[in-house]
């Protein structure tokens, strides 16, 4: 667009361009039609999805991979309700995202008009903030505010609902005189997120760390949101303190680093879970003591003092009382902690050799294990993930769905780079991986992007592979097909006396190879271990279209370790072959 916008529709598109939006994901419809007319002239690449949920998850995948806010645009009514799931997903995982929804004309609001729904009312509880724009003149300012809110403080999704008449050039209500909004134009008197930590508290924290004999750095997704991975590496090495990375923080600290203990929590490895449990100090950085990490709360890390760092003050003390609570941006606070630690001097740190040897003892005794598949049996899902890991570069972006395959991927992949792991942690949204992988690839076209998916998840959002084909955004999908809703099956086996209820999908239907081919993908079916690596190699050679590999995996396989729901982390179940080693 060259000349200045004169109506709300043009102003909206120009406002998005001014925010640096290069790609957006969406699907047009009645109420948003005038905006789509303005998009034709825009520099923004619009990716036409096949379902609005796909647009939302693509925007999330884009944001996870690039660190920039993802943008989705859909029409009113059912389109808005279809994108509620991604909004909630982004809200729980603090993903910066701006969602534009069309709305019926102002005068029709409240009349139960065609495709009308109360979008701002419905999304109030699943967005960081939302707006209903009532004046075309406000559009540049509100879009500026929306991006500001989505990306600052604790990031999150922001929705902007726009009635049709204020963007439709045929309607006089759409007339506006263009201005370039600046921070000074923002009307957000109630929003001023703090970023730096309180120096007095930083000093207190540094002293508490120095005197700790069994400390653990408990790293959450906030470290990635704050782009603090480098600072974290420096802090951990300076202090020589072991690090656990939660499901949302995989890659924030390199898995191959000797201080890295990997993932804690319900399906975390024994060492990460037990080190937290035995710690005398947890330094929580951008983590929120989620129930999947703590297990039964009153038995969680009973001897640990807590330093809790979070940009959201409401997280401090929400779940677990802290000894030092620091509100601040993780990167700034970590840098301040480094300075404060240096000021204390090199010999200020407590003796920790015994702690380190305890930890490495657990690592030796309880590595992640699984039994190789017997000849003729279906593949072990862990083996497939290991092969994927070993046959792809370390900076490969891995997007996951939700369930057993997600846990295997988090456990067996080696994340050595930040922003390479994209998954739905808080909401646990099945069907997340394919659209999220497409969004990541759209944002990072030069990187290899694999989606790890289960057959249950695949059937929820696979249609977006049509989007990938038509829009030429080639991704690779490792479909672990065990014919079951695997995680639910595992719970029914372990906690419901093997009474399997509504978890068997089908051994024969759909034919994933035919389905993938119909969507324009290369498709490969793999049934034996020796076919796994060649199939991955073949997939990696194909870059002009998406590839789906269906791995036929063993439904009897369960994810271990496991802390059963309602138990404390001390009651962790390791792989049955190791259970005898627990003292």
């Amino acid at each position, binding site marked *: 667009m060259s000349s200045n916008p004169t109506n709300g529709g043009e102003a909206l598109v120009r406002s998005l361009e001014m925010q640096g939006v290069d790609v957006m994901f969406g699907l047009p419809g009645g109420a948003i039609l005038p905006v789509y007319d303005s998009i034709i002239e825009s520099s923004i690449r619009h990716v036409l999805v096949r379902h609005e949920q796909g647009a939302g998850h693509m925007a999330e995948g884009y944001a996870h991979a690039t660190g920039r806010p993802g943008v989705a645009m859909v029409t009113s009514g059912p389109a808005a309700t279809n994108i509620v799931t991604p909004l909630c997903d982004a809200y729980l995982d603090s993903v910066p995202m701006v969602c534009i929804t069309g709305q019926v004309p102002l005068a029709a609001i409240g009349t139960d008009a065609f495709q009308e729904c109360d979008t701002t*009312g419905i999304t*109030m*509880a699943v967005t960081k*903030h939302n707006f*209903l724009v009532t004046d075309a003149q406000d559009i540049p300012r509100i879009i500026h505010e929306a991006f500001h809110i989505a990306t600052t403080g604790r990031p999150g999704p922001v929705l902007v609902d726009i009635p049709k008449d204020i963007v439709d050039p045929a309607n006089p209500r759409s007339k506006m005189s263009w201005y370039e909004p600046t921070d000074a134009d923002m009307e*957000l*008197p*109630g929003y001023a997120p703090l970023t730096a930590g309180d120096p007095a508290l930083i000093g207190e924290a540094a002293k508490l760390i120095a005197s700790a004999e069994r400390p653990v750095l408990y790293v959450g997704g906030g470290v990635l949101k704050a782009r603090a991975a480098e600072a974290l590496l420096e802090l951990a090495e300076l202090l020589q303190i072991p690090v656990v990375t939660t499901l949302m923080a995989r890659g924030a600290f390199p898995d191959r680093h000797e201080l890295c203990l990997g993932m804690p929590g319900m399906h975390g490895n024994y060492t990460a879970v037990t080190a937290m449990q035995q710690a005398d100090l947890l330094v929580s950085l951008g983590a929120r003591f989620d129930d999947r990490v703590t297990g039964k709360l009153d038995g969680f890390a009973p001897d640990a003092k807590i330093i809790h760092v979070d940009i959201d*003050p*409401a997280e401090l003390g929400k779940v677990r009382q802290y000894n030092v609570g620091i509100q601040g941006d993780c990167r700034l606070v970590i840098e301040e902690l480094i300075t404060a630690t240096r000021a204390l001097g090199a010999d200020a740190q407590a003796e920790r050799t015994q702690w380190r040897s305890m930890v490495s003892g657990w690592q030796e005794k309880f590595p992640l294990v699984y039994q190789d598949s017997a000849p003729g049996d279906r593949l072990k899902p862990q083996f497939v993930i290991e092969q994927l890991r070993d046959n792809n570069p370390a900076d490969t972006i891995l997007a996951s769905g939700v369930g057993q395959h997600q846990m295997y991927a988090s456990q067996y992949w080696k994340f050595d780079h930040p922003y390479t792991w994209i998954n739905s942690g808080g909401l646990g949204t099945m069907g997340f991986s394919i659209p999220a992988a497409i969004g990541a690839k759209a944002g990072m076209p030069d990187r290899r992007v694999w989606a790890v998916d289960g057959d249950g998840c695949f059937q929820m959002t696979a249609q977006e592979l049509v989007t990938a084909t038509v829009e030429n955004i080639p991704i690779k999908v490792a479909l672990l097909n065990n014919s079951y809703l695997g995680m639910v099956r595992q719970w029914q086996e372990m906690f419901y006396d093997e009474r399997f209820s509504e978890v068997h999908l089908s051994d024969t239907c759909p034919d994933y190879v035919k389905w993938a081919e119909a969507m324009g993908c290369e498709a490969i079916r793999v049934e034996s271990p020796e076919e796994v690596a060649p199939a991955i190699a073949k997939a990696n050679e194909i870059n002009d279209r998406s590839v789906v590999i269906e791995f036929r995996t063993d439904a009897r396989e369960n994810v271990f370790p496991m802390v059963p729901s309602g138990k404390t982390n001390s009651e962790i179940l390791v792989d049955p072959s190791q259970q005898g080693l627990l003292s």
Partner: protein
Amino acid sequence: MSERWRTIVTTVENKPGVLARVASLFSRRGYNIHSLAVAPASDERFSRITFTVDVEGTPLDQVVKQLNKLINVVEIHELDPDQSVERELMLVTVRSDGRRRELMEIVEEFQAFVLNEGEECVMLSWSARPVRLDELEQRLRPFGIVELQRTGRVALPSLDR
């Protein structure tokens, strides 16, 4: 005032939907509102919302912090009951048949106002500390309360001497 109820005063942007955001937050997080009073502040761009929350089972600190996360909430204070002045208004219609003089003695004692008189009923209004309203209500109950409406409390910090 019992320790169970605490008063929170917020200044919010005077925009459509703000009360719904606040109410939605309370409902979503399972917080219990005992009373709620809303009206525009002296600066019309803002409104004041005064809540009384049940702190049994609702962590006050979390209520304040979660409210503060709402973009439209500009300021938030918890009022210390010992350092604030609280008032609530009550309108009440009471049966007066045959006991009118007795009723008027109570009105006089509490310095309440008679707003309206019918053949068998009297409508009273009184503004006072919420505990005092409770007392008046108790005293009126034997007469037969026909209708009663209380506003929910409003409060301001006490002045320094």
